[in-house]
């Protein structure tokens, strides 16, 4: 499903080029559960952003579902991202002035889904993530775990084929983090590809496939 070939992403820092990704080759099949680990600055987030079409590589080829997506226009990439990718961030990234329900509804609005359909989908998502009683609360009134549940509900509302999670439990305590992991793993059990960046060895070990990164390169890839 995901096919990266010689993907390079470099940043110019003054007169020095920093290779966030250095000729990375990676294949991930549909339905896989992959953890990406490595020291800070090794390029984990950059890799995830490229897979999620949020960033463009400087060179290399990226095929998603058999289609070369590196050459797509910005608007086309946005469409692919909306339909196929669900992002979950460490910082949750909820819109502070919108309620939990409205945050979950956002991708549907961007997708142009009719309002009636939106209401049922949001209601279902609220129920699935046990957020019914928090539907009308704003992010500031929610706990960290609830916020991440809203973020996951939002990431999955359009039923993407892949969930990209960048340290999803980084801002949560151990117990709540484990709950969130359960939710993500449930999605994987339901057939969604799950790619997760984490610093936590224990969490990383739960994945079927472990990728280790260092200095913009994949150094280990264990299944």
């Amino acid at each position, binding site marked *: 499903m995901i096919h990266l070939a010689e993907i390079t992403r470099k940043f110019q820092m003054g007169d020095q080029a920093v290779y966030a990704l250095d000729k990375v080759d990676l294949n991930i099949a549909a339905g896989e559960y992959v953890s990406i680990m490595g020291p800070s600055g090794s390029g984990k987030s950059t890799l995830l952003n490229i897979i999620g079409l949020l960033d463009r590589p400087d060179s290399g080829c990226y095929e998603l579902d058999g289609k070369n997506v590196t050459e797509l226009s910005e608007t086309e990439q*946005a469409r692919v991202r909306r339909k196929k990718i669900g992002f979950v961030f460490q*910082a949750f990234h909820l819109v502070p002035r919108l309620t939990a329900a409205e945050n979950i509804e956002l*991708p549907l609005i961007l*997708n142009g889904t009719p309002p009636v359909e939106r209401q049922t989908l949001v209601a279902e998502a609220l129920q699935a993530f046990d957020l019914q009683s928090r539907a009308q609360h704003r992010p500031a009134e929610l706990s960290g775990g609830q916020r991440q549940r809203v973020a996951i509900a939002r990431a999955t509302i359009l039923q993407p084929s892949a969930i990209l999670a960048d340290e999803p439990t980084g801002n949560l305590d151990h117990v709540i983090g484990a709950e969130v992991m359960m939710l993500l793993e449930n999605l994987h059990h339901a057939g969604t590809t799950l790619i997760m960046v984490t610093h936590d060895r224990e969490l990383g070990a739960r994945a079927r496939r472990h990728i280790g990164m260092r200095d913009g390169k994949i150094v280990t890839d264990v299944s």
Partner: protein
Amino acid sequence: MTLQDAMLLSLRSVASYRVRSLLIILAMAFGVAAVVVLTALGDGARRYVANQFSSIGTNLIIVLPGRAETTGAFPGAVMGQTPRDLTLKDAQLVGRLAQVKRYAPLNIGVAELSAANRLREVTVLGSSADLIPIRHMTLAQGSFLAHGSGHSAQIVLGAKMASDFFPEGKAIGQRIRLGEMRFLVSGVLAAQGESMGFNTDEIVIIPIDYAQTLFNTSSLFRILVEAKSRRDIPSAKLAILDTLKQSHDGEEDITVITQDAVLATFDRILRALTLAVAGIAAISLTVAGILVMNVMLVAVNQRTAEIGLLKAIGADAADIRRLFFIEALWLSMAGAIFGFLLGQFGSLLLRLAYPQLPAWAPVWASLAGILVALVTGILASLLPANRAAKLDAVKALSRK
């Protein structure tokens, strides 16, 4: 994203950042209100002047002695002559012209009025019966000066004169002394108040020949002429000039003013003034536009992470641009509408404070004010909306 959803989402932002939104709306509103109120004031002044001018008569032509020259020397002065006076004979000649409907000779002076043991200096107008229709005056009681010559010593009192000298209201038929002459009160003018800086309530009117005797003069102050119709005014003016030139031995030593020409001049001046004032007020809208731009730029900055998130969940540049653009449009629209209402309210206050001033903002001015507000709002939002759309999603998301 549908347009309706974009509008609703932007409206949420407007409602959420209350202080900021209020600030922009107020700035816009004051600009629009300034346009509305100032044009209401300008156009009100124009209409006030027009009303005043038409209240003094219709198709009015005023003949006065002497030649008003803006360039060159006075012709009479060159010849060592003084300008000839206007006489009653001149007035009669003018009255016979085909284009003239009626005329009234006019003399003016001050005399001591005594009646009912009261004594007072009053302004005395000498004229004839046709003064009433020409000057659009109305009588409250009795009758005006009789038609024709050889009339008796009648006097007509202004409303305030009548009430001052005869508080019981029985002025008609009373005897009055004006200087050394005796008069019989035949009528009282209806209260009219001031018009063109002349208060008809505080004057008395006597027949022209009595006035000439009283003031010991044979000349006239003015001849008031009413043309048969509006179209006759220019030819009437020429005919009057021609007739009086002949009567004055070929000397063109009178001036003819038409009400139309004076009115048109005032109208032009006040229209130009209104336009200028509206333009200046519109400039304040540009300032509001710059404020909109700055506040929207700050908003883009504040909401960088949110913009990154929207991109991560599938918004493209056009979606983001549209959201910020419509947000600015809501603000300008609210400002324009609120400003329009504020301006209408201001005009209402003006009308209440100065009932004589018809301070209604012209429709073009209100529309222009609203339009300029919307256009400035739109222009001012282009740069911020574009900046938001072009934000790099990854960088935006990593911003805290």
